[in-house]
């Protein structure tokens, strides 16, 4: 499979992985077809019964081309390393674009860790959530920045698409949720013609959203990463408001706060997260960061270009209806799929250093890929316990 992969190549690679590793790998077609009639499939890797359920996703935003490719190559490397009982090797990479080449050395994850992961984790990978959007984004340079899915326009409108990462059933109705300032800053819109962040006609209205939600619920996912680009960040809940650990009554379900949430750091309202859960997110996030940074070698330029920030999702713009917050919310909604859910948004790559923003060129893609592999292997090590 060559980067950037077409939608068809991604589906073919999923089928190949399942066919080549039948004892370990099962391919499942998600229950809902997309608006354009495509099926979405994911693979489950299980080396033993009863592993901790993990979900890795990518491609929710059509224009972010690298994450699905990197998730599939990670699966390939993991399965081959396990079956051969060898280390998982992330090859060295030399970036030849700068005036002086930058070399990132090879890194390896020990065979014992690979074994522990495969035998103690039930690993689900849905590499491409939004195939319709990706196909559209890859149809011409004029469409390259398309972000949403391809929900058809309403009668009398020409505006297609929903931002799937605003469509999950958590604080979906942002106008009810925030005060005026928070409402003005929130990264969400009820206008179907909004090119970026239209939330859809109702919570989880989109088949792609329901596919992910059903895996999260049905498989009782306890560890989740949604892989995006770009900004070299490892983000953890919450995106709706700033985190606080003191007052459990300040939460997205409490109607007493409706219209009064500020959606900004500081301020009277903060989204509650138990202290132990916050600490665990910081700890695992730091391990993911260190995995990338620790494999960057000694060249200061490589180190600077491998430095990811670990921080809560809320920065300048509050977000509602996101996959990562929704996954985390399930542990509080009474359907608790697990005693706790660890959930991240991994934002890979950069606008700078020749990394190409949403669409890295093939020459730099191996750097992006290695960062995904190193971070997610650290995550999987944590999930394996």
């Amino acid at each position, binding site marked *: 499979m*060559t980067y950037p992969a077409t939608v068809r190549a991604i589906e073919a690679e999923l089928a190949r992985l399942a066919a080549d590793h039948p004892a370990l790998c099962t391919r499942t077609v998600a229950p809902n077809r997309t608006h354009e009639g495509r099926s979405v499939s994911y693979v489950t890797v299980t080396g033993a019964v009863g592993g901790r359920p993990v979900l890795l996703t990518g491609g929710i935003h059509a224009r972010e081309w690298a994450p699905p490719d990197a998730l599939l190559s990670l699966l390939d490397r993991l399965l081959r390393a396990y079956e051969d009982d060898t280390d998982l090797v992330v090859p060295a990479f030399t970036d030849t674009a700068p005036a002086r080449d930058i070399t990132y050395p090879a890194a390896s994850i020990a065979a014992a860790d690979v074994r522990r992961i495969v035998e103690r984790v039930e690993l689900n990978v849905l590499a491409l959530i939004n195939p319709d959007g990706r196909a559209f984004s890859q149809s011409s*340079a004029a469409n390259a920045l398309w972000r949403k899915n391809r929900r058809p326009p309403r009668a009398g409108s020409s505006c297609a698409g929903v931002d799937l990462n605003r469509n999950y059933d958590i604080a979906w109705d942002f106008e009810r949720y925030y005060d005026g300032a928070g409402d*003005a800053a929130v990264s969400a*819109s009820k206008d179907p013609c909004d*090119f970026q962040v239209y939330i859809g006609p109702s919570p989880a209205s989109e088949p792609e959203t329901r596919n992910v939600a059903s895996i999260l619920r049905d498989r009782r996912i306890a560890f989740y990463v949604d892989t995006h680009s770009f900004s070299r960040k490892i983000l953890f809940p919450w995106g709706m408001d700033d985190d606080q650990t003191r007052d459990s009554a300040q939460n997205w379900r409490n109607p007493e706060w409706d219209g009064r949430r500020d959606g900004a750091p500081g301020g009277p309202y903060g989204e509650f997260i138990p202290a132990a859960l916050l600490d665990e997110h910081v700890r695992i996030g730091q391990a993911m960061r260190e995995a990338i940074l620790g494999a960057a070698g000694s060249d200061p330029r490589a180190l600077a270009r491998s430095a990811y920030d670990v921080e809560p999702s809320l920065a300048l713009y509050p977000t509602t209806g996101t996959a990562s917050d929704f996954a985390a919310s399930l542990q509080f909604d009474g359907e608790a799929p697990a005693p706790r859910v660890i959930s991240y948004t991994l934002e890979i790559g950069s*606008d700078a250093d020749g990394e190409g*923003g*949403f669409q890295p060129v*093939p020459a730099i893609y191996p750097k992006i890929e290695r960062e995904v592999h190193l971070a997610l292997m650290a995550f999987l090590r944590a999930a394996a316990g």
Partner: protein
Amino acid sequence: MQLIRIAGPTEPMRRLAEVDGLDFERTSARRLGDDRWQVSGYATDGALEALRERGLEVEAVVEPEQLAEQRRVLFSRLEADQAREAEEQ
């Protein structure tokens, strides 16, 4: 169209969604100081002008020609793959 970084005080930076022709990546927001932020995004010429009119600083990260060349490389590869897939069907 070019890839840019925008910097400025919190209040106008929280209202970037109002700028036509600007497609910014929200998670790229970085705090530069007490009341200053930086965000990356793709901008048309019209958006660049609107950003400057709002008193925001704009720095080009990938110039239009370079962005067009990156797209050319990517789409030539995609078109080759899509043609091969069509033949295989």
